[in-house]
């Protein structure tokens, strides 16, 4: 059984799943940047008391699962989302969906994801794929980060759906419940909602570790890393930062470029000239994040490593924080047409 489903590649897995499933459900306007922006995907958080793979916990995007939920909600599309206790039940419901012609989004862990290169297989459980059919014992898989559709045996799929540890997927599957066309008016409204929520997330979230304040907080920490952790561990921490910022899924520059693309696309629906200028600011911020990554690479490769080099790194982050703060403030001042 193979559903009539078109695999599309995206930068980020959840954006990609959201985009493909919504397109399948008749939302022809949706693109990856629109899904990301409407879902208020841009974020920053550094959780100093938490460790991931023995390194710092840093995220450049919002919590897994939210982009899909928010985007569907903003477009008035009901969502089905299920978790399972039993593996048999999880496969049974998946098969029922496929039999009903419904491609299904699945949250999976990458450690046992056989088609991924070994170098990428850490215990990371918030990856997203679409199952769109079954032939013999193989499930047909559309993994948004891959160029081509692929497949997993039923055992392999069960193993990744029931990966354990942080963010354990517990067989989680999700899909839009109904086929609906969406008007351009709805898209406009959804863009406004998404932008406003993102302004709140980046400028007004309480506490020092998230949003713009979070970037500054990490900038301050980085300049202490060399003395506190020693050069080797500080290098490993910086490498982890670069991976979170640039590895598969971010579209480059810690999602800042996708957000800039979103604002350009938003302009096509809502021709407000500020959007174009603000988009450029996000591009600039993304470029600074990339420069920071180059600086970090110099440190973890041991080419440089003085305190001054760590301070340069911090300065890049502060520069990004300043630009993003101004950009979000400018967004909050936009007078949206009624």
């Amino acid at each position, binding site marked *: 059984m193979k559903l009539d489903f078109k695999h599309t*590649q*995206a*930068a980020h897995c959840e954006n990609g799943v959201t985009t493909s499933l919504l397109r399948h459900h008749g939302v022809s306007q949706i693109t*990856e*940047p629109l899904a990301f922006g409407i879902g208020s995907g841009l974020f920053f958080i550094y959780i100093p008391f938490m460790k991931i*793979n*023995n*390194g710092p916990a840093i995220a450049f995007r919002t919590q897994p699962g939210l982009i899909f939920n928010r985007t569907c909600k903003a477009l008035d599309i009901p969502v089905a989302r299920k978790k399972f206790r039993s593996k048999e039940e999880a496969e049974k419901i998946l098969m029922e969906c496929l039999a009903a012609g419904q491609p299904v989004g699945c949250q999976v862990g990458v*450690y046992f994801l056989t*088609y*991924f*290169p*070994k*170098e*990428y*297989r*850490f*215990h990371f459980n918030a990856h997203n794929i679409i199952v769109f059919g079954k032939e013999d014992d193989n499930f047909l898989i559309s993994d948004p*980060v*891959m*160029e*081509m559709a692929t497949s997993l045996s039923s055992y392999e799929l069960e193993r990744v759906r029931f990966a*354990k*540890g*942080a963010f*354990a997927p517990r067989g989680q599957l999700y899909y839009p419940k109904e086929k609906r066309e969406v008007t351009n008016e709805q898209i406009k409204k959804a863009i406004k909602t998404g932008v406003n929520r993102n302004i709140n997330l980046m400028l007004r979230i309480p506490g020092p570790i998230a949003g713009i304040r979070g970037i500054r907080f990490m900038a301050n920490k980085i300049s202490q890393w060399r003395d506190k952790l020693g050069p080797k561990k500080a*290098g*490993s921490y*910086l*490498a*982890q930062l*670069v*991976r979170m910022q*640039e*590895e*598969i899924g971010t*579209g*480059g*520059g810690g999602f800042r*470029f*996708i957000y*800039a*693309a979103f604002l*350009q*696309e938003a302009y096509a629906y809502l021709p407000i000239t500020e959007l174009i200028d603000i*988009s*450029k600011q996000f*591009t600039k911020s*993304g*470029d600074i994040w*990339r420069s920071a*990554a*180059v600086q*970090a*690479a110099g440190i*973890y*490769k041991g080419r440089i490593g003085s305190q001054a080099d760590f301070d340069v790194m911090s300065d890049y982050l502060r520069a990004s924080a300043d630009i993003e703060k101004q950009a979000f403030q400018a967004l909050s001042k936009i007078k949206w047409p009624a």
Partner: protein
Amino acid sequence: MKKEELPQDLGALGKITGEVCYVTDESGNYTTVLSNGWEVKSSALEVAWKDVEQRIRDAHNKVIKKEASPILFFMELRVMDIPIVAAYTGFWKWQVKRHLKYKVFEKLSASRLAKYASLFEVSVEELKTMKVDET
């Protein structure tokens, strides 16, 4: 990032698939281009794996000195930590922590050893001796 500045340094993922990157074209409009990788991030990944290898070697030495049980070695070898091992085996975290002690490990029941062996995808014999062929 401008289109022409997008790095194309072949990395581990690039051999399997290009990655979608968002870049601006000549007129400043966003478009997507596939990248084969970027040296800056493949070296970051390399740093992460070198740290893992170091942890595996340290664990191995500890077990030889009987300061830890082979479970520590396999936990590091499989890039896991105590919460992950606990979640897969069904043991409590404090139990896994106890099992990391050499003396406790020596007295583990066959059924518990089998649980660990199956998680680490080795035989019980290999679990005890740490002799594994990794290809």
